[in-house]
């Protein structure tokens, strides 16, 4: 039934072949972090075994080759999100650093007491706390876009909320409910109000075709480890003019043109924002992950996840009726395959423990979105999130495991 040959894909992920306690793994925690295909793992070991070298600094052939490989990864990222220039792609350590970079470097140069930053009730802490630090330090004001009953952004009052705002920070897809937000519309609303659009694209880029130019965004942030790539590397994309006008963030090697006893001058983009030795091997791995994703086709990945999301909604609702509550929209066109579920009042921690008995891996917790938890009226949820290597059988395994939770806590 599905667009992707999931059986063939699964075979490329060594960990999904693993048995734990004699049973296969049903990995449903990809919104947290994704598994890695063999090609990504191999790209990194091959690089370290055959081509590892410093970049940007040394002139010998090995170093020139490594620099090319690193910059080649940047071009892959550029194309993957359709950025205009490769030097608009800044490699960070994760999406969190990328968002902090914006808040520290752009924010501290441009936000002053009383200035308004608009966020939404479904933001991840990574797109909240960096701005709250500016509330403490600078006295900026944070406003919040509320949610509708089915977990979408309630845009009824958006124009009022945006009035006088300098930044509109929002997620492209909720990591808790799977809600996909109308990014393009939100970016243009931000611009109409004179605000910058800072898009947390962590949960979007791994699952869908991303086009920063079509979005009209100003900054977007995402992480390699959620898109089949390694840990230790994330991405900030920013519009060239903004990146050029901003002061630097971290200071040190690579980001300078000159250092004298009485001060320093900055290097050009992208070096300006990449202080110190970058995640070289990790950039190679991220490049391999992008090749892997491009071969599958991001439009196909999205279609597959629409199918899985639809199957999960039908199956869970049919089998458990009012015993289960799935947060977020039920229209698969505006959601991804990430589900926060409440089941028969069983605490998420207990639920995930029981599911783990049959190796069904779901995350129990607040998912780094405590303001959203309070909106939903819970401390925590159990979250099952599906990716390109999950199939309908995994949905069935989840449902079976929920049955056994009923047995214990029923």
């Amino acid at each position, binding site marked *: 039934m599905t667009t992707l040959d999931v059986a063939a894909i699964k075979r490329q992920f060594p960990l999904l072949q693993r048995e734990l306690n004699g049973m296969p793994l049903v990995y449903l925690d990809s919104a947290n972090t994704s598994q890695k295909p063999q090609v990504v793992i191999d790209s990194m070991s091959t690089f370290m075994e055959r081509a590892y070298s410093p970049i940007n600094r040394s002139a010998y052939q090995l170093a020139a080759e490594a620099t090319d490989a690193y910059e080649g990864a940047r071009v892959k990222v550029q194309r993957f999100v359709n950025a205009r220039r490769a030097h608009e792609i800044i490699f960070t350590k994760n999406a969190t650093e990328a968002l902090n970079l914006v808040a520290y470097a752009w924010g501290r140069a441009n936000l002053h007491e009383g200035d308004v930053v608009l966020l939404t009730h479904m933001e991840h802490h990574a797109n909240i706390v960096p701005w709250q630090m500016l509330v403490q330090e600078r006295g900026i004001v944070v406003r919040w876009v509320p949610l509708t009953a089915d977990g979408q952004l309630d845009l009824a009052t958006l124009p009022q909320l945006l009035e006088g705002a300098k930044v509109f920070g929002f997620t492209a897809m909720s990591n808790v409910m799977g809600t996909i937000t109308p990014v393009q519309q939100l970016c243009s609303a931000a611009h109409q109000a004179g605000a910058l659009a800072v898009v947390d694209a962590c949960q979007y880029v791994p699952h869908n075709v991303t086009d920063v130019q079509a979005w009209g965004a100003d900054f977007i942030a995402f992480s390699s480890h959620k898109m089949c790539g390694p840990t230790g590397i994330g991405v900030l994309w920013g519009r060239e003019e903004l990146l050029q006008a901003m002061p630097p963030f971290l200071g040190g090697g690579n980001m300078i043109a000159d250092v004298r006893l009485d001060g320093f001058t900055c290097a050009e983009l992208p070096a300006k924002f990449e202080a110190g030795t970058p995640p070289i091997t990790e950039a190679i791995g991220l490049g391999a992950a992008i090749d892997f994703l491009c071969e599958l086709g991001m439009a196909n990945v999205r279609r597959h996840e629409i199918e899985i999301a639809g199957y999960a909604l039908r199956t869970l609702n049919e089998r458990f009726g009012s015993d289960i509550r799935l947060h977020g929209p039920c229209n698969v066109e505006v959601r991804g395959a990430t589900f926060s579920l409440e089941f028969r009042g069983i*605490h*998420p*921690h*207990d639920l995930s*423990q*029981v599911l783990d*008995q049959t190796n069904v891996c779901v995350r*129990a*917790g*607040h998912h780094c979105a*405590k303001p959203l*938890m309070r909106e939903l009226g819970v*401390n*925590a949820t159990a979250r099952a999130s599906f990716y390109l290597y999950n199939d309908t059988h995994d949905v069935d395994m989840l449902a079976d495991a929920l049955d*056994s939770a009923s*047995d*214990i*806590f029923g």
Partner: protein
Amino acid sequence: MPGLEDLYREIILDHHRTPRNRGELPPPAAHAVGHNPLCGDEIDVYVQVANGVIADVKVGGSGCSISQSSASMMSQAIKGKPLPDVLALVRRFKGMMSIPDEDGNPMEPDLTVKLGDLEALQGVVKYPVRIKCATLSWNTLLDALAQS
């Protein structure tokens, strides 16, 4: 469900379903709130100390079966006990949860301190992530006592 009997003993599920000493105590009772950053659970512990004895204790907030039952059993075990006995019990319980002492060394169990029902929580040690659930109310109790 094979394998989970050790964790979800009947007595734990019982305390989870019917928690003892639920509620609040008005000031001057001491009150502390504990957070489990992992799962977002919050627990409230209220203690009334009189003449060096836990005169009353109540537990509020919400959490998983392990944190709720641990809090419930704790409240039963300490109510009416002199403070030194309570502190010895905290130590003994944390030792059972394989929490190291102040210097990072394993704690020797003081076998003269009896755990009673709390013994049922022993199975938690096999699930390191849940240890924080089991000890949440105990750490919160210490916070509350430090205030009183």
